């Protein structure tokens, strides 16, 4: 009893190695020779390396113990370690000393003292020659072929390693789980959905064979067919894509305080597709880290680079954009280190790593790979992507869907544009504009004094003496300007924006593009935290706008369309009008100018003026007049004008074509930024004395990067990560795949393969699997196939008496684990059991129902337009994820907040989870769906069909029959509830769904069936993969 408790409590303690090697009852390794990597390094790393390790700056007394040379150096008559001679080793004397002035680690270090047992281990090791080993994770992959006695149990290479260790401990593996458990396990693991009853029954029939050789062969074939079928469904990409998206820190919003929406779902679709197509992991890596640098990259390869655009963005006022950029670059370095190398490279941000061979300088050489990307705080490159495009099937969504995607925008032209329809819309649009009906008289334009000029991506913008504004330095093509001004009168009817030339601009401007052009995507006023958008906008003459880039595109709320001009260095103007003269409450207003529609597109010099009266849009008035005439009454000039306007509208519509969205991608700037070490990680303190850094990798990890004389790029980094000579990437990747199946990696600290991390429980197996991964051409599906067809995976998961004492944490895998499924799968399982699931793959994120009150704790309320129809029942993977206010189900069931990389989720078990499953209206709706399905699949009278329905419910939820006690208990519950509801008609009505009552049940009976469905969803069994 006591021991059991002790062992459980070890679960979260760090004594992972000790727990494994010294676990009560385990004898296998005890009497062996002391090994540096297994026995000594963890000890030295934990107690000594902090002061006597790789970090040269903070090294004490010039002593380093992480290398043989350092530890055995003559220190003037004595050595820290004298191989073979413990008595002449100062280290041993100091760690056993009781003198406060001498003992190591010193009391001030607040490290635990070396125990007598540990000191004895050190003594043995020194006696045996103090043999150092390189850190295991950096060594080449080893090969081994363990021998086992029970060869009949072995189904593939994995089992040999697992069984060899079990046999060494004298433990028998668990029997194979039954067919029903296996199909549910495989379905949840490979697709995240529950198997349907017909699939279960078919598999059970095929799988349960006689125990003779022929029977076993048939069983094997049935199992194999199931695995292949599941790997081939598109849901495999959703299931395993979700694991990858955790690492990519994918979310649908920017994070921090404002947490505005972002378009990142095309990247999510890319991940799903790449996995479904079984893209080899090396290619998968290269496309995400450097797809933009491939020769003639495809659209998909560019979208893949969204991986590192998943960083959080602070849109708050007053942010230092350079600081924000640097923080994002650091996150990219740290994420790359965590995902591919399983190393905590972030530790070397401020100083050389304390435990692992990553120097401060090497960190910034990694930093240099990412330091030249084009994105700048909240601005960055994008590419146009249509729904379905990542799956090779671009589709034009239905008009109402487009509208939902585009959000609250005016003037969106829906569907294919026909001139007749357009003319009607155009008449309405012009009639809405007060400028079209304004009297034809000159209005006065007023200038103003600017209070504060800001840009979002660090461009330098200043006001010249003539009141115009000029960009004098430009960092990002898509910079946005925010100009706070003080206006003399609060009344604003219209704003005039004049694009002006200047000798400092390319081709004299007025834009910053190489040809002097620009593209202003949005222009509006902000005041008191609210946006004040214009109702219409126009160019006074035809020369003021390009047909495809009309002035009105800068006031349509759509960032893909913009105002631009045919550049000939003449001043051009655009006029923006309010519906009626606006009277601002505050005299300070801010002009916002966004340039999101292309690269190098900012305005270079411009002037802004304000009118208190509405000016006349003579062109608009003339167009309106022409449009109102019947076709045959229009003059040729009038018809030409109408046709030109239609062409313009169609060209704008083209930019919204298929309602493509702009996906965030990665690109580099032309001239790389300089990279220096940041002293103590502080970006304002570049250490220029230490020299300019070229991009480079961590030298302790093979292979060395060849010198080519060319500046290295992200492509070199990506190729190095997946070089077959790099031993970390395959180990780390395969270990995480293993972790998803067994709840724990072969290296438990899957995020730390460094000196401080855990030792592998089965080092030879890890290396063999890593080798297989490369030998199978980095095929991820091949690895899944290998693992799930092993006998190890197929074991039953039930607890075993004999293991509680000797292997309470199941490190040796003499059984499978029961694992609570992830938040998303909790929902998906309920959807698949009820039959409500909308299995559609990919596309924009959706907003299923969520409980009221989610935004009581966020700065800005989110626009959560709850989905209707079957869109309510999409898989959880597609639920819109706001970083500041995640969908409550996710937070409750341990979905991370995606602020930074997440390589492993927690598995908590809390009352809030109970309340969610019991009471969340979304789950109640699904429980109603399940009850309806029971009645649909088993039609008939309530009492007569009750048992059949409950049995069916068990198969739907657990893929198994109820045992007699379960059936009796559940039937009793339903009968009691039905009886109770008969006298609570109001209660029954709220619980029962219409569909049920229509099927001939009373309200009370319907409600009781819904109650049963709800109860089943709330069992541990339902949310557990067994």
């Amino acid at each position, binding site marked *: *009893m006591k021991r059991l408790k002790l062992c*459980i409590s070890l679960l*979260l*303690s*760090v*004594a992972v190695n000790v727990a494994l090697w010294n676990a009560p009852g385990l004898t296998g390794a005890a009497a062996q020779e002391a090994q540096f990597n297994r026995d000594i390094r963890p000890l030295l790393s934990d107690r000594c390396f902090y002061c006597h390790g790789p970090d040269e700056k903070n090294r004490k007394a010039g002593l380093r113990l992480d290398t043989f040379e350092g530890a055995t150096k003559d220190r003037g008559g004595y050595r820290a370690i004298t191989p073979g001679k413990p008595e002449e080793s100062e280290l041993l004397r100091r760690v056993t000393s009781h003198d406060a002035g001498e003992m190591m680690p010193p009391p001030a270090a*607040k490290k*635990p003292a070396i125990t007598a047992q540990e000191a004895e281990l050190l003594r043995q090791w020194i006696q045996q020659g103090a043999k150092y080993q390189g850190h295991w994770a950096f060594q080449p992959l080893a090969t081994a072929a363990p021998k086992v006695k029970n060869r009949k149990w072995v189904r593939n290479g994995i089992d040999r390693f697992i069984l060899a260790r079990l046999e060494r401990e004298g433990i028998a593996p668990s029997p194979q789980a039954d067919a029903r458990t296996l199909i549910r396990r495989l379905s949840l693991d490979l697709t995240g959905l529950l198997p349907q009853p017909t699939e279960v029954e078919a598999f059970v029939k095929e799988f349960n064979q006689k125990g003779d050789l022929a029977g076993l062969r048939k069983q094997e074939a049935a199992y194999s067919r199931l695995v292949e079928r599941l790997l081939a469904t598109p849901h495999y990409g959703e299931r395993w894509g979700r694991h990858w998206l955790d690492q990519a820190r994918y979310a649908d919003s920017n*994070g921090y*305080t404002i947490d505005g929406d972002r378009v990142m779902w095309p990247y999510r679709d890319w991940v799903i597709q790449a996995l479904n197509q079984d893209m080899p992991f090396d290619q998968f890596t290269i496309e995400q880290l450097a797809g933009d640098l491939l020769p003639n990259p495809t659209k998909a390869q560019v979208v893949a680079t969204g991986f590192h655009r998943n960083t959080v963005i*602070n849109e*708050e*006022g*007053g942010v230092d954009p350079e600081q924000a950029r640097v923080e994002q670059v650091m996150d990219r370095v740290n994420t790359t280190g965590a995902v591919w190398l399983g190393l*905590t490279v*972030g*530790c070397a941000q401020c100083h050389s790593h304390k*435990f692992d061979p990553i120097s401060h300088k090497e960190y910034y050489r990694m930093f240099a790979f990412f330091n030249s990307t084009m994105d700048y705080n909240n601005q960055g490159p994008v590419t146009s992507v249509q729904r379905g495009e990542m799956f090779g099937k671009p589709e034009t969504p239905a008009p109402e869907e487009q509208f939902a995607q585009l959000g609250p925008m005016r003037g969106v032209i829906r569907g294919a544009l026909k001139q007749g329809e357009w003319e009607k819309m155009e008449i309405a649009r012009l009639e809405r504009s007060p400028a079209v009906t304004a009297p034809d008289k000159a209005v006065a334009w007023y200038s103003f004094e600017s209070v504060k000029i800001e840009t979002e991506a660090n461009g330098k913008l200043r006001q010249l003496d003539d009141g115009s504004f000029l960009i004098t330095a430009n960092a990002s093509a898509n910079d946005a300007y925010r100009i706070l001004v003080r206006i003399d009168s609060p009344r604003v009817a219209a704003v005039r924006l004049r694009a002006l030339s200047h000798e400092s601009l390319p081709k004299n401007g007025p834009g910053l593009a190489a040809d002097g052009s620009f593209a202003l995507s949005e222009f509006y006023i902000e005041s*008191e935290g609210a946006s004040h958008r214009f109702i219409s906008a126009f160019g006074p003459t035809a020369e003021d706008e390009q047909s495809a880039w009309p002035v009105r595109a800068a006031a349509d709320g759509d960032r893909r369309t913009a105002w631009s001009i045919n550049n000939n260095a003449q001043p051009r103007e655009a006029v923006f009008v309010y519906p009626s003269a606006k009277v601002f409450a*505050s005299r300070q207003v801010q002009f916002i100018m966004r340039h999101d529609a292309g690269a190098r597109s900012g305005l270079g010099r411009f002037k802004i003026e304000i009118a208190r009266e509405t000016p006349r849009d003579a062109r608009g008035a003339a167009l309106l007049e022409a449009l109102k005439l019947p076709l045959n009454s229009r003059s040729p000039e009038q018809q030409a004008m109408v046709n030109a306007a239609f062409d313009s509208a169609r060209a704008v519509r083209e930019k919204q074509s298929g309602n493509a969205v702009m996906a965030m991608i990665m690109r580099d700037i032309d001239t790389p930024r300089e990279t220096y070490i940041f002293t103590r990680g502080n970006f304002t303190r570049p250490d220029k004395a230490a020299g300019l850094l070229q991009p480079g990798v961590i030298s302790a990890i093979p292979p060395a990067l060849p010198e080519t004389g060319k500046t290295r790029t992200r492509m070199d980094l990506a190729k190095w990560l997946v070089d077959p000579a790099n031993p970390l990437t395959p180990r780390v990747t395969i270990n995480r795949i293993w972790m998803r199946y067994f709840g724990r990696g072969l290296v438990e*600290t899957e*995020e730390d393969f460094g000196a*401080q991390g855990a030792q592998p429980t089965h080092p030879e197996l890890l290396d063999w699997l890593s080798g297989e991964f490369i030998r199978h051409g980095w095929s991820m599906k091949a690895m899944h196939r290998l693992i799930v067809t092993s006998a190890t995976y197929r074991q*039953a*998961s*039930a*607890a075993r*008496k004999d293991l509680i004492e000797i292997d309470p944490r199941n490190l040796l895998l003499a059984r499978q684990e029961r694992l*609570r499924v992830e938040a998303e799968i909790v929902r998906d399982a309920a959807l698949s059991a009820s039959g409500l699931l909308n299995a559609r793959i990919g596309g924009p994120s959706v907003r299923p129902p969520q409980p009221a*009150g989610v935004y*009581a*704790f*966020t*700065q*800005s309320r989110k626009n959560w337009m709850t989905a209707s129809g079957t869109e309510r029942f999409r898989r959880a993977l597609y639920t819109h994820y706001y970083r500041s*206010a*995640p969908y409550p189900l996710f937070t409750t069931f341990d979905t991370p*907040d995606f*602020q930074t990389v997440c390589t492993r989720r927690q598995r*908590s*078990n*809390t009352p*809030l*989870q*109970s*309340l*969610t499953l*019991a009471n969340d*209206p979304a789950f109640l709706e699904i429980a109603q769906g399940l009850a309806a399905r029971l009645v649909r699949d088993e039609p008939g009278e309530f009492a007569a069909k009750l048992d059949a329905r409950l049995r069916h419910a068990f198969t739907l939820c657990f893929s198994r029959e109820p*045992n007699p*006690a379960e059936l009796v208990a559940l039937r009793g*519950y339903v009968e009691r*509830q039905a009886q109770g509801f008969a006298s*609570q008609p109001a*209660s029954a009505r709220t*619980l029962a769904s219409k569909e049920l009552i229509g099927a001939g049940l009373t309200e009370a009976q319907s409600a009781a069936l819904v*109650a049963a469905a*709800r*109860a089943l969803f709330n*069992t541990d069994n339902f949310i557990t993969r067994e």
Partner: protein
Amino acid sequence: MNDYPKNELQDATRRHFFGQCAVGLGSIALNCLLARDGWSAPQRPKIDPANPMAPRKSPLPAKAKRVIYLFMAGAPSQLELFSDKPKLRELTGQSPPPSLLKGRRFAFLKGNEKLLGTKRQFSRCGQSGMTLSELLPHHHKIVDEVCWLRGMSTDVFNHGPAKLFMNTGFQIPGRPAFGGWVTYGLGSESADLPGFVVLQSGRRGPRGGASLWSSGFLPTSFQGVPFRGSGDPILNLQSPSGLTRENERDFYDIVGVLNKARFDQTGDPEIMTRMNAYEMAFRMQTSAPELMDLSKESAATLALYGVKPGEAGFAANALLARRMIERGVRFVQLYHTDWDHHGERGNNLDDDLEARCREVDQASAALVLDLKQRGLLEDTIVIWGGEFGRTPMGEVRETTGRDHHIDAFTIWVAGGGFKPGYLFGETDELGFGVVEGGMHVHDLHATLLHQLGFDHEQLTYRFQGRDFRLTDVHGKVEKNILA
């Protein structure tokens, strides 16, 4: 299949199960405290995964057992409230000496701003020698109860990062909140309510949202649970409408029976944990509304806080905070927003600041007085403050306000072994920098943990190969402010 020692396992789980169920209000299970008194060095609590919130005794002697943190989001102006600067008033309208600006970074200032003295009246009050602004009349009553930290400084000058820094000791999201560290270390004494609760008042939620009470890399059990100040305090607390308590008892029973049946099949102790969680959920359905129901409070108490029955807001939240810690909640954090007084409409140092003060002054003081009178103040820490301070220079927007200032601001702490009526820290005569008694956010964290019975360098969690602390690699315990 059934060859595990059923009785032994069931014994363990059953005792755990009933041990939890039997914990009543106020009667803290002593045996739990003793039984779970396990600490490894460095100070990493041994968390029972089956019951991560089990109360744990601190590894060192503790003066305080729980925390109420009144977070003034947006950063109140210390120069209008706590820090009287006659010299600054005298020099209003003049440029600040360039030497004082050197090396400082501001969010919005351009560099040509002028000094701004306050127009608020200050007066000396209490025995401590503290001068307080007219804007906080009720604070005059607690001036000798609280410890004034007037030399606070932080590292970051934007709201989101600075709030994260104040809460997690780091400016980038992803690390555990202070409340998470405390419940990780101490668990919670409440079996019916979450151990770390967050309440919110003001026009909107605090910037940063969930990352401010995140459990970061700690187990997710240690994340703050937001309670709404009115209506249902917790999402999904209410059973589907129409279901009676009897319906629900039957529901929880059938779920329990099915879970027990599965436990008998598999022997997985995790199932017992889940049964335990369901029972607590059922209890929370009554304990949480009971907690929120202020009607049982005396008229005198309601008047003390200025709570109007049925009206949500800071005052009601402050009273709820007291009710929570009475029920064993370990860490309660209240956010009150809109202290960001740059000077534009809705955010000025005039009526807007006055309104914020009116909203929090009385209830903040009442909380301290009420805790004292109930004997709870001695082992409860109350913290009051924002994420940074505001500049001695005016920032001209529609009116003249103040920008963010990270180098010198004031917060106060009370109870929990802090010296009452003690003034610590002084700034220069213009309020730019600290001249003595400086206290960085890391030092504050270190000192608070010290009072709760932890060495801040030892309370660690290993994540990605590193032993993380609330104080990162900084912080020192400020002994001068400890009673």
